[in-house]
């Protein structure tokens, strides 16, 4: 469990090059000045080691935006279930996104199990990367307890002064280390640096919102009739950006697409959003969340209440993407603080 190795920073480029020869490597790359995205890389120079959460979280590799699940041939009356996957190494996953992947794993391995997800996940190697500082003001990873590594990776990189400290967490990770012969055994001073960094982090990462980890569920459970949702109702434009960029939103729609021969085609799962007006509308026309405030409440409950009931786990990772992306500036930390203020 306790295997640690180091990699000289000067060897990082070579590491990524060698890594990309094992399997295709995806890593955070800069998209303009303020944005980042996971994309394929072959050299270390392309990797953005200092990055704020990518526009889309790595969930795009675990549950693709559009995923074929069935092919059909009408004349032959044939329906064939399909699995799509690709082998990849995901490098540079922050602890918030590792928590997001863990949440998705829980959902899709809960019975009835989702074979498509499970197989796809097993084809992906995950290499984490520690945040030594806050990415920006939207993060609330400390209150969600995701600012430090909690597993969910094969290898985990922490940037130290001249090297990376690497936690080897799985056999798959160890095989990579053995195959790419660039690593040194971690020495006492490396461990010291890691401890110092973690101690410093505990001082920096705190007090993001005016309620503690334990109090969050109760805060939301008691918020159903809050005026906060009325305010949000008047501002939300129901675009669905917040759910698309959320590392733990997994709702989907199932759609058919027929080919131009009007005979063959496929059934797909595509990302859907509970913020869309028709999301909960039944055939008779009744919608159970007609106004946008109630749909936003639902989104928050799916992060802070329902998964706690079901899986004993918050589904908010504290990554801050929903606040960063909201066109109408609906902000997660402000929403939590407004609820706390109202309660007092």
């Amino acid at each position: 469990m306790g295997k640690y190795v180091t990699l000289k920073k000067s060897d990082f480029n070579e590491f990524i090059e060698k890594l990309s020869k094992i399997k295709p490597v995806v890593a955070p790359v800069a998209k303009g000045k303020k944005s980042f995205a996971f994309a394929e890389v072959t050299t270390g120079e392309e990797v953005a080691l200092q990055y704020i959460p990518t526009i889309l979280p790595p969930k795009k590799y675990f549950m693709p935006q559009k995923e074929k699940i069935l092919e059909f041939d009408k004349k032959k009356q044939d329906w064939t279930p399909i699995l799509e996957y690709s082998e990849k190494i995901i490098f540079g996953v922050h602890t918030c996104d590792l928590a997001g992947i863990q949440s998705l794993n829980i959902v899709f391995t809960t019975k009835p199990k989702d074979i498509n997800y499970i197989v796809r996940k097993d084809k992906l190697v995950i290499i984490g990367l520690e945040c030594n500082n806050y990415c920006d003001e939207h993060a609330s990873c400390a209150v969600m307890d995701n600012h430090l590594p909690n597993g969910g990776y094969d290898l985990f990189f922490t940037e130290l002064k001249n090297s990376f400290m690497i936690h080897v967490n799985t056999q798959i990770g160890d095989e990579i280390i053995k195959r790419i012969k660039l690593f040194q055994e971690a020495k006492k001073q490396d461990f010291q640096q890691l401890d110092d960094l973690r101690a410093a982090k505990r001082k920096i990462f705190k007090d993001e919102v005016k309620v503690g980890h334990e109090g969050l569920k109760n805060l939301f459970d008691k918020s159903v009739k809050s005026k906060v949702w009325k305010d949000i109702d008047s501002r939300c434009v129901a675009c669905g950006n917040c759910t698309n960029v959320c590392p733990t939103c997994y709702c989907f729609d199932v759609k058919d697409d027929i080919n131009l021969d009007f005979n063959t085609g496929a059934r797909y799962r595509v990302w859907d959003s509970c913020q869309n007006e028709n999301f909960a509308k039944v055939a008779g026309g009744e919608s159970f969340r007609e106004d946008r405030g109630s749909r936003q409440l639902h989104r928050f409950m799916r992060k802070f209440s329902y998964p706690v009931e079901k899986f004993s786990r918050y589904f908010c990772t504290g990554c801050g993407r929903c606040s960063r992306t909201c066109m109408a500036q609906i902000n997660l930390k402000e929403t939590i603080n407004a609820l706390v203020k109202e309660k007092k």
Partner: protein
Amino acid sequence: MKKVKVAFFDFTCCEGCQLQVANMGEMLLDVLDLIEVVEFREVMSEKSNDYDVAIVEGSITTSHAVERIKKIRKTAKVLIAYGSCAAIGGINGMKNNFKLKEIREYVYQKDAKHFDTIPTHAVHQVVPVDYTVPGCPVYIPEFIQVLKAALSGLPYNVPDNAVCVECKLNENECMFDKGVTCLGPITRAGCNSWCINNGNICYGCRGMVSNPAENGQKDILEKHKISLEWIENKMNMYNKSRELGELK
């Protein structure tokens, strides 16, 4: 399957959307297996009064055009408004910024009296439309979707959320972060943020989202430091005709 007879018609437009059909590449061959084109001015000289599906490009800007589109509507079982001009009036709608008499005299000078003109209308403001493919030009994957829907009698609704949603899914850097203003936040999606993917801004060619969260829209403009007048002006490039009701 019996081939469906399809006719292309153009009204006030640049015919660029019809040209997009030629850009379909190999898919065009699959489409031609399904349909029999009986009229298409850009590629053939034949005309026909026998068709099932009318694909109409262009906006309605003369009283003669009003009569012609009504005739087409009577013949066609299915009418598809094709391209921004047909779907929302498009850039021809800029004419509606001026008094009709003034603009006519400005354009045609001393011959103005020989040229009949009416305010620019989208097709649906004149006759009922079954399917709409907005866009300047149309986005071919969406046109294929609509064609499939039309040929199998299923509905197609133009998405009513913002281009930003698709833009985020494509992980583009936000134009506003680049210091450029973009109409993505108030323009209907469905184009897969085609322009922004290719480094251009959104010009609002697909029409405005019908989203009535007024405070939210104000917040969006405020967030990006855009004035209401500016956005209206920009939006009017493609969407001026929205101010008109149905042509009586």
